[in-house]
């Protein structure tokens, strides 16, 4: 119980921080809305013939992209704590070793959930109609959150290995852009060059976007959902131990 309280206190701290970081706050609010509106009205006609037809396609794509961008802040925040000595203060306190990381990831999941809700609301205001049951919608939110918590471990590793918080952002976004765009998040698979298609099909962002589409608008959800979960499990199995190892190594050196 004590460990849970401590984790919650650390999560609270991560959330309070957002208030004083306009950039981060913007990334959770204005940026996703901006992306949704821009993609919808700029590309909607070209990709799907009309904005109305594009909205059900692009909304899950923007949700997936935004989820990945938000995970960068896990690495950014961790690196800030490491370089500024805040992490040392926590480590000298009688709290479990995993609590600072757990608190951060917990706070991240809450931010993620709020972003998804925000995007769904804005989507509905723009004319999006949810065609499935509330359970499927909840399933979609849960799937995005499961994938987010797995992807967070990649950013934990980036956060541990980076020299300063700016490098986390630089590296994080540079890596995420191609992964996000070489996917079916924004355009259908058939419109892309044949050489690219195998990558697009295997890309977890494609699978997550396809799964989310099916869970919001109907269609075959099972296969993309399962593959998304397989990806999430694989990422977690590789990156969680790797990140913890890298973190311990960095701490032992210092």
């Amino acid at each position, binding site marked *: 119980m004590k460990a849970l309280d*401590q984790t919650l206190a650390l999560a*609270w701290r991560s959330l309070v*921080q957002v208030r004083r970081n306009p950039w981060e706050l913007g990334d959770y609010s204005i940026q996703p809305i901006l992306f949704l509106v821009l993609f919808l009205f700029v590309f909607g006609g070209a990709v799907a013939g009309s904005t109305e037809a594009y909205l059900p396609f692009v909304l899950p794509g923007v949700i997936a992209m935004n989820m990945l961008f938000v995970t960068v802040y896990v690495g950014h925040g961790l690196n800030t704590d490491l370089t500024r000595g805040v992490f040392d203060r926590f480590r*000298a306190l009688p709290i479990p070793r995993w609590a600072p990381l757990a608190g951060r990831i917990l706070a991240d999941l809450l931010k993620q959930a709020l972003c998804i809700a925000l995007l769904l609301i804005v989507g509905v205001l723009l004319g999006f109609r949810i065609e499935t049951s509330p359970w499927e919608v909840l399933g979609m939110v849960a799937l995005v959150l499961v994938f987010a918590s797995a992807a967070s471990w990649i950013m934990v590793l980036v956060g541990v290995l980076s020299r300063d918080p700016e490098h986390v952002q630089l590296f994080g976004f540079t890596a995420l852009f191609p992964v996000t765009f070489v996917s079916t998040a924004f355009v259908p698979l058939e419109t892309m060059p044949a050489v690219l298609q195998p990558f697009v099909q295997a890309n977890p962002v494609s699978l997550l976007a396809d799964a989310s589409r099916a869970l919001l608008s109907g269609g075959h959800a099972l296969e993309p959902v399962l593959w998304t979960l397989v990806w999430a499990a694989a990422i977690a199995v590789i990156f969680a131990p790797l990140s913890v190892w890298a973190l311990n190594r960095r701490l032992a050196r210092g």
Partner: protein
Amino acid sequence: MEIAIRLQGLVRSYNGIRAVDGIDLEVPPGSILGLLGPNGAGKTTIVRMLSTLIAPDAGMAEVGGFDVVRDAERVREIIGLTGQYASVDEKLTGRENLLLIARLLGLGRRHARRRADELLGQFHLQDAAKRPVQTYSGGMRRRLDLAASLVGDPAILFLDEPTTGLDPRARRALWRLVGELREQGTTVLLTTQYLDEADALADRIVVLDRGRIIAEGTSAELKERVGGRSLFVVVADSARVDEAAKEIARIVGERPQTRDNTLNVAVTSSAVVPRVLRALDQVGIEAVELGLRTASLDDVFLALTGHAAEATSEMAEEGV
């Protein structure tokens, strides 16, 4: 608890260099020990081992009777740590920082609030309590950092260079706060590059150089070894530094250390000042600057090791 902090043969290396090279030390409870030394002497490494942040390569350390490796968890329950870098969260307010630590230490909501407000008052931070730390001055940050390390009323407190980079007024303010801790019976291990700081705060001073203890004693004992004050002369003509050194040696009885155009020598009486001035004048050596200053860490190092401290101790020279 007969001994608050005990170190035996403590060793820690970085990249093959022994940052801490066999330290034996005992600190009785309720006293303030000053670890004095330049950058790279091993001060911070010792503090990091004692506060369970890194493990020793060899030897052992006990804090409050608990081994820092085997009983790290117990050690963390009784210590407070104020790092060299202000380890508070910039994005939180001062009050939120203290609340966070209080919650992490298991204080209930109301108790945490009371403790935070108490400390904000004690450290004169009430007015800034609701402002984010990124708007704080260096002195306020250090005060908050110190307050954060006291939330749990630690029996043993580590202060790693608590005043480095602070202006003289902020330093004095922090010294007063540490002085108050002494009265409460907290055991304090303080690291510093400044002799005057160790002088003002510590009951006993340990001088470190390259990971080893090179001297130990009260500040009076150490100063006696250094000579208390030193005479410094800056000559205009660098070609005549040697000549000036001979003149000064004749009067003071000891050959000064020279660095560029500056000559330095420990003296016991201020009476030598006019005599040196006259002597240099007679041989036609122009002194651009000449005066007495209190012994600095540089002087301690010169006297104890024969080599200069790598870090300059500008602060210690303020009293010129």
